[in-house]
């Protein structure tokens, strides 16, 4: 039973990673850039919840909407201001800019909220669920359920709608997509918007699970989610889901059975192993280098 409850907490953690990894993988697939600041969007989303519930006393559903809107706008604005002018630049330039944006968000939060961790309001008033001897916390049940719903909706969106088709086309070949009348700029903005909205949702679940949020809260889950995206094959949406869940389970089990302090090291080591054995990840496509 111990094993099962560890597995479930791993799956719940993994679904948070999966939500963040989706943002990474979609942006990477379309803009071919590693959005280093994506992790910090989670932190912004969580802080929006804290401010609107604890400080302004707004109802939970308003706070949730505010948080998603805030992150979406932030994602689109950073893309417009910082990444769009660099679309033809070298990857090194874009990566350094993304690190700059990440640093900017962290330090703005540091100036506004201070370095101490703020407690996250309890927004899911759900008692834990018992099945036989097994008990699951309300948060993990909600996290798992919402993640599954979001993933199904996202798959439908990508595969069935016109906008989703445009996104797939842009990620395949930007120039050809443009010739077909697809607005590349709008599609990239849309991708950032969706990715950031998912990050906001992840931020809510992260805050609800851990209870505390600080200016640097987003960076570690952000990096781990990138690991998850690589794990599943960067650019692949089902890959990000599977990668996130696997990584969450791996982290939870190594915390339970190996060592709490070493769990991060194990997660990162798994990234190195995956990249060596199968550099394209579990579901990634092989891209041939052209001269």
């Amino acid at each position, binding site marked *: 039973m111990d094993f099962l409850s560890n597995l479930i907490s791993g799956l719940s953690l993994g679904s948070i990673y999966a939500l963040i990894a989706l943002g990474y993988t979609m942006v990477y697939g379309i803009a071919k850039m590693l959005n280093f600041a994506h992790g910090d969007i989670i932190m912004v989303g969580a802080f929006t919840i804290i401010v609107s519930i604890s400080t302004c006393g707004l109802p939970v559903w308003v706070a949730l909407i505010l948080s998603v809107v805030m992150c979406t706008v932030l994602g689109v604005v950073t893309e417009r201001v910082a990444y769009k002018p*660099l679309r033809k630049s070298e990857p090194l330039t874009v990566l350094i800019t993304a690190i*700059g*944006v990440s640093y*900017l968000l962290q330090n703005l939060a540091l100036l506004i909220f201070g370095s101490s961790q703020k407690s996250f309001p309890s927004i899911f008033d759900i008692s834990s669920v018992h099945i036989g001897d097994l008990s699951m916390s309300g948060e993990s049940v909600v996290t798992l359920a919402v993640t599954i719903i979001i993933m199904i909706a996202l798959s439908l969106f990508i595969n069935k709608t016109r906008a989703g088709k445009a996104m797939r086309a842009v990620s395949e070949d930007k120039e050809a997509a443009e010739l077909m009348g697809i607005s590349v700029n709008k599609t990239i903005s849309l991708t950032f918007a969706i990715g950031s909205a998912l990050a906001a949702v992840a931020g809510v679940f992260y805050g609800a699970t851990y209870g505390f949020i600080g200016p640097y809260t987003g960076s570690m889950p952000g990096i781990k989610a990138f690991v998850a995206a690589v794990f599943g094959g960067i650019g692949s949406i089902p890959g990000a889901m599977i990668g996130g869940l696997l990584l969450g389970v791996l982290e939870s089990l190594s915390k339970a059975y190996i060592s709490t*302090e070493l769990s991060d090291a194990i997660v990162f080591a798994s990234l190195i192993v995956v990249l060596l054995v199968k550099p394209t990840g579990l579901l990634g496509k092989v891209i041939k280098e052209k001269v």
Partner: protein
Amino acid sequence: MGLNEIKAKKNDLITYGIVIILFAIVAVMVATGMATRHMQSILVPVCINIILAVSLNLVVGFLGELSLGHAGFMSVGAYAGCLFAIYTADILPAAVRFPLAMIIGGVVAAVFGVLIGIPVLRLSGDYLAIVTLAAGEIIRSVIINLGFTGGAAGLKGTPQDSNFIIGFVVVLITMFVIMNFVNSKHGRAIKAMRDNKIAAESCGVNLNSYKLLAFVMGAFFAGVAGVLYGHNYSILTADVFDYNRSIEILVIVVLGGIGSIRGSIISAIIITILPEALRGFADYRMLIYAIALIVMMLLNSSEKGREILSKLNFRSLGSLLKNRGAKKEVQGNDE
């Protein structure tokens, strides 16, 4: 000797000149008592940051790959060198022990560089950046969990042998080695690889071994800087070597100009002194770094921005990136 080589030599001599003149000014200030205690206390950190920035510039500027694990190599070197110094504190005199500790720290960091580099350098770009970051974090959490490193509480008892003169000598050695390396046949191979991988490979440049060479060299000097760091403070904890530290070094390199050794040196000096000199600045320090990073990159990516930069006399950076952007000849532009 070709024209480019003469130009490179001249450039190097100017850089040496700047560093030696700065050293002389500081030495006079210390000798005449003009430098306060507080000013003296940041002299060694300045040297450490110069070594770190120059060695990271070798990887970022000349190899063209982003390594975010520089602080990891620094910590490996620091722990190796400091443990050696602690165990030999009673046996060896400081004059022998400290240089030996630095060499050991550097070599151990270089060994880690090889161990991490062989698998990691098969990747490039974003993947390489994130994997070096992961490697740095692995090193940090392993150090915290090992018994003989003092764990989370830190390593105490390292003899405090660091001083400004030694720091300066190590800076000179680092400059000498890296600047000569960059202008050598191997350095040209690495720059060729940065500018066009496929063309370099078809000219017979062995990509993997040259990548590894530059990476390991960067790791070696990061380790030496770590030993210097460890000998400057009474306690050594692994937490100071997290990836924020790596990014701080990257900020120094980027602000000084990617691919410019002289720029790295000047920017390391400014960035170390500025927060100490302006107390009120400390709160906004990281925020300003972040904005500076973004603005630098945005300016460099547009024609107009590059003009502004070259007017501001960030010549090295502007011209280097311009040439890289336009895929022109790069030779002779790197200092």
